[in-house]
């Protein structure tokens, strides 16, 4: 190291711990969640028993997985309105094929994951090669995926391999397995992705697609991979739902709820809706915040059906905050494009 870079390194140590914007977002989400959960636990009549934690973790993990799925397209500057539908599709498919002996169960699980991945890949392909806007494409494809889910489960029903379901949803030494599942997804999918060229490319695209193009970033492959992994994670969520409910149900309200709440979770977790900044880890905590709000509403005797109001306000506030830069514009012409 030359003398110059040595000074630089010393200077940096003086900066102390430096947090990226994404890390700051995660910290905030963790903080909010911590406070809320503490209040929730305090208000519980039975206290924070392992059972209570397990239930909370399972419910939260469902949304967390869909929220992680939503994070990737948002990082590229898009939005995926079909995550809820892929979630439901995976749920229904799992209730049909994740059954029987260990071998067929395993194949069933693999099948569900592949279907989720392919749904995402299809989204990505249409967006990239059709050169269409992600919002409308995923809105329309969501309908298609939901239709397929309906075809599989016209009526709620089906079943699932009991051992697997039980394993996925119970706790060991008070640690919920669903939480471990989340950790695994982070370690096996998110972190390697974030450190990969295509993963970083996704952030680059969201930050400035023009500059990314000029810098030779592989835009097409990065986008398709982002949407594919999104579908994969949504299908993991669907699998977990099947494990929890022992059945599959194709309800439009479920799909829409999860899609909307996932967007809220992504925002609370510190990911910018404009793309380029954020992390799936933050979305996990954002999801838990969203879930805890619902529970807190019950605990404080407020009608929990007001959850959508909360999500809506969160979205509006988040979007408006992002638009505050508008106030700093000094040339009105810059407001337009």
């Amino acid at each position, binding site marked *: 190291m030359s003398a110059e870079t040595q000074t630089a*390194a010393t200077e940096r140590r003086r900066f102390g711990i430096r947090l990226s914007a994404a890390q700051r977002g995660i910290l905030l989400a963790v903080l909010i969640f911590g406070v809320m959960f503490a209040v929730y636990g305090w208000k519980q009549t039975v206290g924070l028993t392992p059972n209570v934690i397990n239930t909370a973790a399972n419910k939260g993990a469902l949304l967390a997985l869909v929220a992680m799925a939503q994070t990737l397209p948002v990082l590229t500057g898009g939005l995926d309105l079909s995550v809820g539908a892929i979630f439901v599709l995976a749920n229904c498919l799992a209730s049909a094929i994740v059954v029987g002996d260990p071998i067929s169960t395993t194949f069933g699980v693999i099948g569900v994951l592949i279907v989720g991945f392919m749904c995402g890949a299809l989204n990505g392909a249409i967006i990239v090669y059709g050169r269409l806007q992600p919002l409308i494409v995923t809105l329309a494809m969501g309908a298609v995926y939901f239709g397929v889910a309906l075809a599989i489960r016209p009526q709620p029903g089906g079943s699932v391999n009991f051992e697997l379901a039980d394993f996925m949803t119970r706790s060991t030494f008070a640690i919920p397995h669903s939480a471990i599942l989340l950790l695994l997804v982070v370690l096996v999918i998110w972190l390697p992705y974030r450190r990969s060229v295509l993963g970083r490319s996704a952030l680059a695209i969201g930050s400035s697609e023009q500059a990314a193009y000029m810098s030779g970033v592989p835009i097409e492959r990065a986008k398709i991979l982002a949407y594919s992994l999104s579908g994969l994670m949504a299908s993991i969520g669907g699998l977990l739902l099947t494990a929890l409910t022992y059945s599959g149900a194709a309800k439009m309200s479920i799909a829409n709820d999860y899609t909307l709440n996932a967007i809220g979770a992504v925002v609370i977790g510190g990911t910018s809706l404009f793309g380029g900044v954020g992390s799936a880890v933050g979305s996990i905590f954002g999801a838990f915040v969203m879930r805890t709000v619902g529970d807190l509403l019950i605990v404080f005797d407020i009608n929990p059906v007001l959850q959508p109001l909360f999500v809506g306000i969160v979205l509006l506030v988040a979007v408006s905050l992002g638009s505050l830069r508008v106030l700093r514009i000094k040339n009105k012409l810059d407001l337009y494009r």
Partner: protein
Amino acid sequence: MAESGVGPLLSMSGITKRYGGVRALEDVSFEAHRGSIHALLGENGAGKSTLIKVLSGVVQPDTGTIELDGEQVQFANPQDANDLGISCIFQELSLLPDLTVADNIGITRPPRRFGMIDFKAQRRIAEEALALVGGENIDPMSTVKELSLSRRQMVEIAKAMARNPKILILDEATSALTAADVEKVFAMLHRLRKDGMAIIYISHRMHEIAELADMCTVYRNGHKVETFKAGTKSDNAIVEMMIGREYDSVFPPKSDSKQDVDPVLKVRDFSWQDQLNGINLDIRPGEIVGLGGLDGQGQKQLQLGLFGTLIGATGTVEINGQPVSITSPKRAKSDELGMALIPEDRKGEGLMLPMTVRENLSFAAIEKVSRAGIVDVGAEEDAISEIVELLKIKADGIDGPVAALSGGNQQKVVIGKWLMTKPRIILLNDPTRGIDVGTKQEIYQLLQKLAAEGAAILFYSTDYDELIGCCDRVLVMYDGTVVRTLSGDELNETNLVSAALNLPAGTDEADLAAQAREATQ
């Protein structure tokens, strides 16, 4: 300097590039040697930017060859040029605002470990690149968004250096740098030259070129004028080389400006951010006042400010003696103020391309042919016919999309749109850029006609012929202020160019001729 016995690292010959009818480069040759800094000089549109674009793979030449170290090469895109060791730093940055400096520097070919990005190695590379550039106090882990513009330019330069180029091109790359950072970059360039890199440098700042360059080449009108050793020609001689174009445009006679009438537009001490500094301006009815100077000295901002799009501008503006506050284009367009702006980018700012010529023409003045919000189609038709005839817009395309028209006709539509509002003050932002000669003539005649009818015109142009041929007075801007006002006999190319470069005033033709004679003796 250049090693004897070793050929040039880069050799371009016979390069021609035409855009439609416009000759950007005509049979141009260029050589860059190892261990030398070569400066390119010339006015806007002289061809230097196009040459750089060809060299960096952004555009492909129509004819000609490029040789690197004696071997012929071809670039299909910027990546190809990069791979062959040519790095270009443009003025528009290619940085990703939300990513770290290290990420940005390593964005294209990051170091990898087990298939994933090796962030430690990337950071080390970034540190080294930054140190090379003189930016060691830039934290590689900081987000580009947080950095000042000057810092960002340093990162952009570091990014180019990290690819270990053999040829480095800087196209006005120092325009955003603070003085201190400029010094650091220069130190780096001197070091690189010693290490044998070939550097090509474009700048309008004469003192920079004097400090850096070994060789200089002046371009004019797509041709190479001369290549010479730096320091062997005076500033004025260089200016002479940059101008000296054939006068191929004939301009209509200027109308008598009414000197004794009060100005219709009076601007005092107009300032905005750091881009406009205390501008004073008067325009009388019937006058065509020009704005000159290099690109980006505030001319566009001045026009936009007068038209009401700038927030936070200070100073006073009076129209017909009344102080006014122009808060929006709508206000500027109003009957009370009567202003019109022909914007710089006709495709993005002047026209709605997919809509018909008819719809575009009547757009700004639509209220004049409507009652209570409902359009009187008959009145609209009459008004359109009038304008079409006046401007001689090709009539058979009127109901087709304006996108189908030629550049010249499109510009006529933009002008026609505004003429329908019967403006008294007309602002024009480089209206004849990229337009054929015939239409240019028509526009010049139109301007004189409008002036004769009493309009007050502010005409920004990057074409010196136009400024001289059309304007009664020209205000030359540099760095947001008016550095010189030229009129009458003083209004000539030499003065325009030297004022634009902010050279000291007082050099006239006789001085230049004397200096030129001295230099050749």
